[in-house]
């Protein structure tokens, strides 16, 4: 009898200790966890559910209408236009912007004196708020007073509309990617620096030139980070909003309207909340697909 008493007592002490530890851990984690649940999971879940409703702000969530929102999205030609714009902007981003930081990082790695300074200056423009950079861009593309037309005038080409010309707007939105630099350059540079010195030593003993090392050693070792960045640039093209919102608002005539801009416009100007949420669920599905691809890449990188 006495023995079991002691045992339950010991058990209860242990249990109380455990409970106390649980409450302490809970008090540390729960407040932040609540924010994650409310502002990410709960709201996303609501989006998912309400995309099947004829959502009304005055009386949420309105009537259940099944797949009507999705049907409306897929039967709307402007959705395909937005999809097309998103893809074209992504491709222009690849053509003008994506390779630039890679080349810059490779070249930076070949420098001896002053490398630190140049690296530093490459990253500094990342400290300028996006609205300021976009204001400069808007001024550069201004049809009457902008730098772009001034340069064209200098070489004898007549003035262009740039951001107000439907044929040129997509290129203009992405061509300044040619400048590169910023955080993405830094990412590649760090990746290059993380390649083991031993490879280079060995290559040097074998008498490889720096050119050879760049193409046969550095680049193959950057394969993973390039893959990850490619997927990231795909998902960031998919979600591109700020630059288009500030520079063109999707115009002229929807020529630069991406999916996210389309969601914003449908919510803001047409009160198409249900349709907006249906589109955002489509975006979510695509993003999750891309992230899974990225995770797969990461895993493969870990094995290699």
């Amino acid at each position, binding site marked *: 009898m006495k023995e079991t008493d002691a045992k339950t007592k010991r058990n209860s002490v242990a249990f109380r200790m455990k409970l106390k530890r649980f409450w302490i851990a809970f008090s540390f984690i729960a407040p932040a966890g609540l924010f*994650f649940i409310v*502002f990410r999971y709960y709201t996303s879940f609501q989006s998912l559910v309400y995309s099947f409703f004829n959502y009304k702000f005055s009386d*949420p969530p309105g009537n259940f209408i099944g797949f009507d929102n999705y049907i409306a999205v897929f039967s709307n030609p402007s959705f395909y236009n937005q999809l097309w714009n998103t893809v074209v902007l992504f491709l222009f981003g690849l053509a003008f912007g994506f390779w630039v930081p890679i*080349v810059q990082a490779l070249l930076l790695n070949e420098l001896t004196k002053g490398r630190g300074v140049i690296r530093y200056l490459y990253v*500094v423009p990342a400290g300028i*708020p996006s609205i300021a950079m976009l204001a400069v861009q808007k001024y550069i593309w201004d049809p009457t007073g902008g730098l772009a037309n001034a340069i064209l*005038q200098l070489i004898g080409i007549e003035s262009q509309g740039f951001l107000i010309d439907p044929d040129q707007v997509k290129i203009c939105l992405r061509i300044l990617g040619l400048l590169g630099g910023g*955080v993405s350059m*830094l*990412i590649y540079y760090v990746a290059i620096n993380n390649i083991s010195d031993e490879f280079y030593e060995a290559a040097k003993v074998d008498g490889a030139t720096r050119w050879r090392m760049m193409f046969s050693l550095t680049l193959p070792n950057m394969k993973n980070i390039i893959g990850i960045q490619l997927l990231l640039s795909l998902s960031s093209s998919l979600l591109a909003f700020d630059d288009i919102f500030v520079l063109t608002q999707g115009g002229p005539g929807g020529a630069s309207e991406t999916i996210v801009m389309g969601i914003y416009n449908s919510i803001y100007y047409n009160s198409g909340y249900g349709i907006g949420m249906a589109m955002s669920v489509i975006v979510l599905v695509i993003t999750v697909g891309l992230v899974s691809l990225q995770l797969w890449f990461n895993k493969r990188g870990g094995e290699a």
Partner: protein
Amino acid sequence: MMWRRKRILPMAGNKIKEPKSDLVLRGFAYFFSICWLIALLFPLYWLVLTSVKDQAAAYKMPPDLIPTVPYEYKLVIDSTAYPEYTYEDFKTESTLIVWYEFDSNPNINMGKLTVQWVSGGRLKGTTSLSQRTFKAMRNVIFSATSLNAYLIMRDTNMSACQEVIEDDDGFSVCDKSYRAADASDQSNRLGTEANSIVLTDRDGSNPRSPFVFENPVSATSQKLSFSSLFNNYVAAFKYFKEDGVGFQQFLMNSAVISFGAVFLQWLLIAAAAYGLSRLVAKKIANILMTLFIATMMIPNIVYIVPLYSMIQRFSLKDNFLSVILPGVPNAIALVLFKGFFDDLPKELVEAARIDGASEYSIYFRMIIPLSYSVFGIITILVFTGNWNDIMWPTMVLSDTKVQTFSVVINRMMGNIVNGSLDYPLVLAMSAIAALPTFILFAFFQKQMTKGLVFSGVKG
């Protein structure tokens, strides 16, 4: 470790002779790196350059590549020969001269125009106005209407003489003790015919005898005025108003939001990261971390409508909390914090536990003082992120009083006044707003690298 320099770089004195192709490559690398760098930094130069131009110069074709320093002009009115010339007359006359000059020469970069009143060899008063001020006033007060004496007198007394220096008697030109008499004066187009204006006291009585311009200007002079280069910056702070709210207020709103967001990261996310790192079993911590990190996959556009309706339901619209709170679940910050806490030596915490310290005092007294570096990284990352944010503040902050500078600058670029956008003012404001984050990047780049690279790879 990240920044370890490669030892295998070809250096002088190496035994193996450098192949010629390596030298070519290095020359090529230097050439292109420097060219690219110049191109990359050019937009920054363009930002600063445009912000010190005036509007006419901003639309000039081809544009100037270096700023032209504007001139400051000075006029002296000597009234020694006119004993009846009073202070009121000087006020009227100097204001009219200044405004007339600026209004009729919109394309000349006159930095500043100063009118001095001298009588009997003694300086009795000064009026000065910068062109930028004039333009700001003109856009605000006289948008699209032509200038006339009546309007000038009415409105300059309200606001235009803000730059007027007090005279010897401590008498401000800007005091509002009198105004132009009646609307019939509107026929007096400045510089055309009748230059006489009837002035009255505030209640309209006691009409003063009209003073007729007799051009008592005795001397003019001009000199380069470097301070006038920054007229746009002055205008941004002094004259820019949106619904009566100045630019300082917008910067302040951005700062409050950014610091609030940083503070909540310190308070909530750091604690959660510590809890996950040290207070729960590894298995549970991994599950929870996966759940938290998975939120990175959800783009913000996905939950924007329910979030907006939630903000409305709790009447948080036009409240800073509506911007700050949804930003709290920041998985990148959580991962950075947790990674840092994981690397702290376990023995420290164990020893403190054996000494009987509570988990809270371990966290606040021991862990936080050891973690300044990671707190610094998070501060910079979160501050910059919130400072730069455009979309969400645009949606939830519709009252001008609480808007951030991004929202306001973005709206300014949509408002085209008189056919052209005031890019110098917009870019001066952008440059001011860029300063805090620019300084963070310039001085803490090395410390930030880890966080930046991480958020770039995973984000």
